[in-house]
């Protein structure tokens, strides 16, 4: 099965081509079913590859499948090659698995939309790009996928492009991503210059052996992190993610919760030897950026009123956790949290999509309430997601967050404190969301007229095709923790650290070892503290929003995202614009000027030379004669005169 891992991206590619050619004929729900089937087929192949890898010894679990030589230019030899190792197959499994469920949901969600087929066209293109990204054997293939997902993100965010806000959001996403991409590209160039190759295995090998200069490795690591910051929406490039909620909800679920935004974390894990080998302050920077972003976004989420914006900021915050893990050397924990986050965040996004549909496109939470009576399945699954993200055991989120906090404490107690505070806030704002939407009094009646409802406005439960993925994801959110249970005494040994054993060959160089010290000895205590934090947050949320015992603290500053957006806009408009104009001038005059100038010089020279073309035979004969004399002279003089 490993020889055919190219099938994994090939299925969505086939879907893309088929929908491109026959989309109109397939119609609804034909193109949707085709797209879902393609992603599901990829999932099946991924499962097959997983078992195939398992059958090999641990040291042997890396299979490279070279499709063809992509760039055969003397010193730069890059193949279109896919690498199947535990990390990439893990990514493939949850990308295709969760992706298939989301595609299924989208068939119901996008029903009736005139651009139904185009939606699935883009979704399959996205699946293709994401799979190429994770399966890439070298940086160039991964970069191809990286750019592809950026493009699809733009296409899908601006899907309803007739809406100005959507078009702008799409552009914003693309441009912000591009800034990150610059970092990735420079890292690639550096790697090529230092090692003559852009292959990950060469880069990692060099870092493990120490054959690459430490400064170069640090530079590469940090530049790749710049790319990750752009793609995974960390400070300072997180701006695009909240605005990306303009896209249809399945897009938000797939791209901005489960897959594309995790590409940054994946990339950092893929190059963990480089991070390990780089100077110590590089991973520290990563950890701090992650932690601060997590806290920052959590504070903003507290004051948001749009159901999807809360989830968007929550995603930024959870991604911050993942980078905190990466920076602390906890790659397994980062991947673990990535997987569990995919489950519960996709679940909640799909749930919010269900709510939006049921409320006839209403997205403001202040106009919802008491929906659990009208949308029981949605409510139940959403509550599962809520408990998971809040970190309540035994749901998946608890195990992964706890692991991250453990490593954070071992790395730096300040990071641990930030992580813990963020956990409290996470529980708080998620509780706020659940209470406002599903509990309390129904607040939509006063706004019924705005919905243009004929007669009674009543929210309704969604169709089975939309409910099934919700249930499936809820199940995963409940039991997902099982893939990496910590080594508590009461858990049988076979079940502990399964993900860690699986990912061992990929991360062994970079993974921090925590076998002793303050953090390790108090593991049980830390778990209890984490649970307590979650419960405190939940209790506070219920107190404020359900029981109305205390006043809600939602300062305007926080609601405006600490006016970060406004500051960036002002900067870009003012001094930023001047800088851009100067660069554009430079490009026009100097760069283009040089090119045009050389063309002008050639033309001028040609004009002078043209004067020799008199059209007169005798002149030509004269020149011929001179040429002959010169030739004769050369022959004679070359041997010495006389």
């Amino acid at each position, binding site marked *: 099965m490993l020889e055919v891992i190219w099938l994994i991206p090939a299925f969505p590619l086939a879907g893309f081509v088929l929908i491109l050619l026959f989309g109109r004929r397939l119609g609804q729900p034909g193109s949707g079913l085709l797209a879902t089937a393609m992603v599901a087929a990829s999932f099946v192949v991924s499962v097959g590859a997983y078992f195939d890898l398992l059958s090999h010894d641990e040291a042997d679990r890396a299979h490279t499948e070279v499709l063809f030589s992509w760039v055969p230019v003397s010193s730069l030899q890059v193949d279109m090659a896919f690498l199947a190792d535990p990390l990439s197959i893990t990514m493939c499994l949850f990308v295709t698995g969760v992706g298939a469920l989301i595609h299924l949901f989208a068939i119901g969600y996008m029903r009736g939309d005139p651009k139904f087929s185009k939606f699935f066209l883009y979704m399959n293109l996205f699946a293709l790009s994401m799979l190429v990204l994770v399966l890439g054997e070298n940086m160039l293939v991964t970069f191809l996928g990286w750019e592809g997902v950026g493009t699809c993100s733009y296409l899908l965010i601006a899907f309803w492009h007739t809406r100005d806000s959507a078009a702008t959001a799409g552009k914003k996403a693309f441009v912000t991503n591009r800034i990150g991409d610059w970092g990735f590209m420079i890292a690639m160039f550096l790697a090529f210059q230092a090692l003559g190759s852009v292959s990950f295995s060469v880069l990692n090998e060099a870092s493990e052996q120490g054959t690459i200069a430490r400064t170069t490795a640090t530079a590469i690591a940090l530049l790749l992190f710049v790319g990750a910051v752009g793609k995974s929406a960390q400070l300072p490039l997180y701006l695009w993610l909240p605005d990306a909620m303009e896209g249809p909800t399945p897009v938000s679920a797939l791209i901005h919760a489960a897959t594309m935004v995790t590409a940054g974390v994946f990339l950092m894990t893929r190059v963990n030897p480089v991070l390990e080998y780089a100077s110590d302050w590089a991973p520290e920077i990563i950890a701090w950026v992650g932690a601060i972003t997590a806290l920052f976004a959590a504070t903003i989420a507290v004051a948001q009123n749009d159901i999807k914006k809360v989830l968007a900021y929550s995603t930024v915050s959870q991604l911050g956790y993942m980078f905190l893990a990466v920076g602390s050397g906890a790659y397994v924990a980062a991947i673990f949290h990535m997987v569990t986050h995919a489950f519960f965040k996709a679940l909640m996004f799909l749930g919010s999509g269900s709510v939006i549909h049921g409320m006839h496109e209403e997205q403001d939470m202040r106009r919802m309430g008491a929906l659990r009576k009208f949308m029981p399945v949605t409510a139940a699954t959403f509550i599962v997601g809520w408990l998971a993200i809040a970190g309540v055991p035994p749901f998946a989120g608890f195990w992964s967050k706890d692991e991250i906090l453990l490593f954070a404490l071992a790395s730096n107690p300040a990071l641990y404190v930030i992580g813990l505070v963020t956990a409290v806030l996470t529980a708080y704002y998620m509780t706020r969301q659940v209470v406002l939407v599903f509990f309390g009094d129904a607040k939509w009646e006063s706004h019924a007229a705005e919905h243009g409802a004929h007669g009674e406005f009543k929210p309704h439960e969604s169709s089975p095709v939309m409910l099934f993925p919700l249930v499936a994801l809820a199940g995963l959110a409940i039991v997902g923790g099982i893939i990496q249970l910590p080594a508590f005494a009461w858990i049988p040994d076979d079940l502990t650290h399964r993900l860690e054993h699986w990912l061992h060959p990929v991360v062994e160089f970079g993974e921090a070892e925590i076998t002793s010290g303050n953090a390790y000895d108090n593991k049980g205590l830390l778990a209890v503290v984490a649970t307590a934090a979650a419960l405190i947050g939940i209790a506070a949320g219920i107190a404020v929003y359900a029981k109305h015992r205390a006043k809600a603290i939602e300062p305007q500053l926080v609601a405006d995202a600490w006016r970060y957006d406004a500051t960036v806009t002002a900067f870009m408009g003012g001094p930023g614009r001047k800088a851009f104009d100067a660069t554009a001038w430079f490009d026009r005059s100097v760069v283009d000027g040089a090119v045009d100038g050389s063309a002008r010089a050639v033309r001028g020279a040609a004009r002078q030379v043209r004067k020799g073309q008199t059209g007169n035979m005798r*002149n030509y004969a*004269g020149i011929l004669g001179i040429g002959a*004399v010169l030739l004769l002279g050369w022959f004679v003089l070359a041997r010495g005169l006389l």
Partner: protein
Amino acid sequence: MELVVFVLASLMVLAGAFGVVLMSNPVHAAMSLVLTLFGVAVHFVAMEAHFLAAVQVIVYAGAIVVLFLFVIMLLGVDRADDLQIEPFPIQRPLALVVGVGTIGLVAAAILRAKDSVDREVALDASGDSNIRLLARNLFQDHVFAFELTSVLLIVAVAGTVVMTRRTSTPEAESTQSNGAA
């Protein structure tokens, strides 16, 4: 004796050449050309190339120069050019350079190789006459080139006829040079 012949013939050649270049009347130039050709023919004889001398006189002086004169008369370009006019100032110095350069450099090459060049081997070692030797060489070793040359002549003539055709002229330029065929 050979020396006298050589000097006389060379004088004819060079006088004729200067005449072609310096005479303003084209008809006079053609006559000088005839003088040169005769001189060259004499040299051929002195160098044991008897057949070629005959062909030179018959073809070159007898046909080609006649052709030249026909055209001069036909087109009426027999008026004398004015040799003083030269529209391109650079042309004369250029010509001088080319002429002197060519002669000088070639002479230098020849003189340098003088010692290896001056051995002489008799052409008619086998005792055959010049024409027999030439014929044997032409029709055995170079027969293919010979055939191609005849094709060339036909093509040249046919092409020229087509090119200069006017609606009512059976003029003199369709006169072939008789060539070897």
